[in-house]
């Protein structure tokens, strides 16, 4: 069945965004189970990312407080605090963010797969 191309018309603004065409009927038990699993997966990868953040970056003040001698070490001629806090921390944050992004999108892709296999026969779209 071919439908006419969807045309965007700017009319009076609506209070709610249009209903998303996702095949979870939110009020069913099944929908809740699916949502629960997606939320747990997303929360789990977020918490793991933040744990790495706090271990890798958040621990530094304590580390230098407990071991003041580290301030004197200077790999590559740059004092360690400046090397860690001024330079290396930024690529670390970016790579950590990229690692999270991939994990989160993977979770969403497998969630979409789950829905598609479950509700065969309904209109489906590639994730």
């Amino acid at each position, binding site marked *: 069945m071919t439908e006419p191309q969807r045309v965007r018309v700017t009319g009076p603004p609506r209070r709610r965004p249009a209903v998303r065409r*996702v095949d979870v009927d939110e009020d069913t038990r099944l*929908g809740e189970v699916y949502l629960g699993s997606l939320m747990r997966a997303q929360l789990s990868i977020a918490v793991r990312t933040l744990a790495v953040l706090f271990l890798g*970056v958040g621990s530094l*003040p304590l580390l230098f*407080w407990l071991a003041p001698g580290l301030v004197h070490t200077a790999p590559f001629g740059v004092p360690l605090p400046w090397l860690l806090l001024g330079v290396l921390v930024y690529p670390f944050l970016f790579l*950590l963010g990229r690692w*999270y992004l991939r994990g989160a*999108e993977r979770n969403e892709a497998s969630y979409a797969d789950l829905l598609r296999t479950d509700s065969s026969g309904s209109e489906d779209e590639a994730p």
Partner: protein
Amino acid sequence: MTFDSAPAIVAVTLVTLATLTIGTWGLRFSRTTSDFYVASRSVRPGLNASAIGGEYLSAASFLGVAGLVFTSGAEMLWYPIGWTAGYLVLLTLVAAPLRRSGAYTLPDFAEERLASRGVRRLCSLLVVTIGWLYLLPQLQGAGLTLELVAGAPRWVGPVLVGTVVLVSVFSGGMRSITFVQAFQYWLKLTALLVPVGVLVAVWGHDGAPRATDLSQTWSLPMGTDGSAGLYATYSLIAATFLGTMGLPHVGVRFYTNPDGRAARRTTLVVLALLGVFYLLPPILGLLGRVYAASPSSADTLVLELPRLMVPGWAGDALTGLVCAGAFAAFLSTSSGLAIAVSGVLSQDVVVPWLRRRGSRFGGVAAFRIASLVAVIVPVTGALLTPSVGVARGVALAFALAAATFCPLLLLGIWWRRLTAYGAATGLVTGLITTGTAVIVTISGWRTDTWADVALTQPALWAVPLSFAVMMAVSLATAAHVPAHTTRLLVRLHTPEPTIEPAVTPALQR
């Protein structure tokens, strides 16, 4: 130190003209109310990330960081780290669900999640408070800069920035401001990158001298005074890591993304853009030490260093460049904040007021009236209150956001049992604790005791307290969990289909 003001005046004029020109050009794309508020939610990640970077890198980043590193050393590196890492926390816990909520402002989100007009009004009050608190040091920094580089009276900076912001917000709204701010990120990056490159080359040419007083305490990554310094450092980490998500101008930007996935990708690009930028200011702070600069205040080191190290016309040109960058920083952050505050004011104050008076004015007119108020109040405040230093002033706004909107967003997105009563008491708790800190800091009361440190850096105890109050009261009022909670959470966490129906934002009811 005498300053030839010509390069600065040329630079400030050029930046102002460029801002207004791009803003007017963007106007051609701004037609609907939706364009004004959220650029019709159609900004792509690359452009949007540049705009976020341009808006976020304020005077505190451009001038404040180098000055703080210069005066206090490595412990101040936590400011830029926190401002960047805040986006990582935002990315992991908030970005995609917030975009999918379909709400436009934080008050919209609160009302939608908790079905409570009361919580909505509380959030509106907080957005305006945080926005004005953040605007204050920007405007004061502008006054300081123009006084130093152009010999202008102190009031010229705030008034000039306020006027340019008003004109660009008036004319183009969010759509045109997106182009302006994307331009201003790259301007700011260039305006630091080129001077840093030249000055480092000069330093190398001089035989790479070491600073004479690179004492151990200056390299210590937290304060010098033992456990209090450690506390202050962790409190700053808590405020910046958790406060970023609650800043009004950061939140609004997320609604300009087409969908949740784009919101995430945008945030990742922002992490890269901020990381590149923040490599630069500490270098200027270090060079300031090496060449024994004596700036008239910490915030003006960046402006004075080029002439100190490079004589003649080259020094003048570099000074003009950093002035342009600094002015771009004042303008972009102030515009972003003005838009966010105007959006809330127009929805919650001006539109109801117009309606009561039976006026037929639409959304755009209300937005313009609101922006007038949103700019004039902080400009007046900047002229009347003493400056607390731009980075420290901004840090207070972060602490306030961390103790109020951070718990609301995290619990609202991830915890099904949040109730309107819990949210309201938690928000009030955060407002009282960090509001006290703001008053104490601005009043200038200092005793250098533990009580003083705990009061002026409240985030480490105030944020957990707000979380605890919000959760405890929610559990005690469990009967009031909104009926639509599960349905709403499904929407927040469900990935969009690839082809999403066109969505128009919630502006009129």
